[in-house]
């Protein structure tokens, strides 16, 4: 729609005097959604400008509207159709909707289909065949999806950077191979609960995908040291986040491998990896002292004060620490904290179910953690609210302390 069709309009009309670029510049100065909609209703040329200005759209409506959106917002880059408790509709996104989306939004880069439970491999095939510019796809909890559809995406969307598949139980090692062959730029991979992924899958994945920054294999319980060592070695320069929740076979070799290769690691989740012991954690603390920000190691039953002390003293950028149910930990772990000038940037600390930690340990924390926001001390028999008051401890106003479980948890380590 380059030229306007208004012949009956008086000489100096805006449509004559302002070019598309100028009109667009005026449109972007309108902040209010309502004003933008009014803008689009003025005439066809203004509607075109308003529609093509839109890069992102969140759609909550029935599927038969999609054809119309497609015709109007042709330059869309980001489409969010995710479902949640607060945002859902019946019957939800279907495969035919995906076919419309795939053929209409050729510039689409980001597609969010989180929890769109109705979609199947058929819809994914349409995505793979048409959306070659796609960089980010979220099909978490789209439980009907299998390798067939996912392979179609891997083979068609070769610039994929981010792929979220949490809860897609049917995803398997064949997908890992397809990603390795086709999507070399993958940076973020979410495979939580994809229990069919094995060491072999990880190993073949990182043969081709060597730029991974964020890898989530929470609850992929067959993964062990072999798979993780492949990952750490291949992605040593880029790996920032590794999540291994409940991968109970993972042990010291993985941690040592990370210490050896991934010195830029920022987030590590090893909750439930009960084979991990002090020696490897000490090496990790030393290696990632400049980078580690978030560490979750609840239920790591073999961890004692010696590695914890090391972590706290070396990892000065640490902001989030979860050592819940690490039963061997005592107040001695915090012995460095009480000393002069030892300030920690810790914001979130969870020591729930650590029966040996007492109010004394808490006092040392108080001294050193100026920035603490949330402290979880549930089920610590020696730490109670009453006990703290008796001991005369004054907690800073900004601290949120969970003594009995009545506080909402910050969602930082999931």
């Amino acid at each position, binding site marked *: 729609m380059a030229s306007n069709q208004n012949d009956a309009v008086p000489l100096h009309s805006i449509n004559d005097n302002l070019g598309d670029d100028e009109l667009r*510049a005026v449109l972007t100065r309108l902040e209010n959604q309502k004003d933008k909609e009014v803008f689009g209703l003025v005439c066809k040329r203004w509607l075109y400008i308003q529609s093509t200005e839109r890069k992102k759209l969140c759609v909550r409506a029935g599927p038969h509207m999609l054809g119309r959106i497609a015709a109007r917002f042709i330059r869309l880059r980001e489409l969010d159709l995710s479902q949640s408790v607060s945002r859902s509709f019946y019957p939800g996104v279907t495969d035919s909707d995906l076919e419309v989306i795939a053929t209409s939004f050729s510039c689409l880069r980001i597609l969010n289909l989180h929890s769109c439970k109705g979609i199947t491999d058929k819809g994914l095939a349409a995505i793979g065949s048409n959306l070659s510019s796609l960089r980010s796809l979220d099909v978490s909890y789209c439980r009907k999806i299998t390798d067939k559809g996912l392979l179609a995406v891997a083979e068609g969307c070769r610039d994929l950077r981010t792929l979220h598949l949490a809860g897609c139980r049917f995803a398997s090692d064949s997908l890992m191979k397809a990603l390795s062959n086709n999507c070399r730029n993958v940076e973020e991979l979410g495979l939580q609960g994809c229990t069919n992924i094995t060491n072999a899958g990880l190993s073949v994945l990182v043969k081709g995908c060597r730029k991974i920054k964020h890898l989530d294999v929470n609850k992929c319980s067959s993964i062990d040291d072999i798979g993780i060592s492949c990952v750490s070695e291949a992605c040593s320069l880029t790996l920032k986040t590794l999540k291994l929740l409940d991968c109970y076979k993972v042990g010291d070799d993985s941690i040592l491998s990370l210490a050896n290769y991934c010195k830029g690691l920022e987030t590590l989740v090893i909750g439930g990896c009960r084979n991990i012991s002090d020696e490897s954690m000490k090496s990790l603390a030393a290696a990632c002292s400049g980078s580690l920000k978030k560490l979750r190691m609840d239920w790591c039953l073999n961890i004692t004060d010696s590695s914890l002390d090391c972590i706290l003293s070396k990892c000065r950028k640490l902001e989030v620490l979860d050592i819940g149910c690490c039963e061997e930990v005592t107040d001695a772990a915090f012995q460095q904290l009480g000393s002069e000038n030892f300030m920690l940037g810790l914001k979130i600390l969870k020591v729930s179910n650590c029966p040996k930690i007492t109010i004394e340990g808490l006092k040392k924390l108080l001294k050193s953690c100026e920035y603490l926001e949330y402290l979880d001390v549930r089920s610590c028999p020696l730490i109670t609210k009453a006990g703290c008051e008796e001991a005369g401890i004054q907690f800073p106003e900004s601290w949120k302390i969970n003594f009995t479980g009545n506080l909402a948890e910050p969602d930082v380590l999931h």
Partner: protein
Amino acid sequence: MITLQSSDKDVFEIEQSILIQSGTIKNMVEDDFTFIPLPSVDTETLIKIIEYMKKHADKTDSKEKNIKEFDKDFMKKTLNELFALVFAANYLHISSLLELLYPSIADRIKDKITEAIRQIFSIRCDFTPEEERRIIMDNKWAHEGTEIEGTLD
């Protein structure tokens, strides 16, 4: 001194130091031009542009407040005058003026209903009533994602 010539063939002599606020003129001056024809800018508009540049040339602290007052008054023009200024400022690459003009024009569109905008800007509506209805319906359910509101389809 640099000589500018409008599309109506009127000439204006202005100091170089004032005119370099225009990226376009600055480039020509650097290429040693002293006579610059501006076929896309008519006299009326050129006078206003020169007025703007003169005021903004001297940006000492004490004049800040004066300049702001001037800018406010400067924008009190008819829409057609503003459009002409946008064209000229665009062509002459005077970004500070454009940064004033766009919000001023946007202000004339804010909080108005569509028909009012059409009248102000003398635009003829080229939608059929059916098309208009459809667009209004579309707008109810497709948004940028900043608010969660409204009904579902």
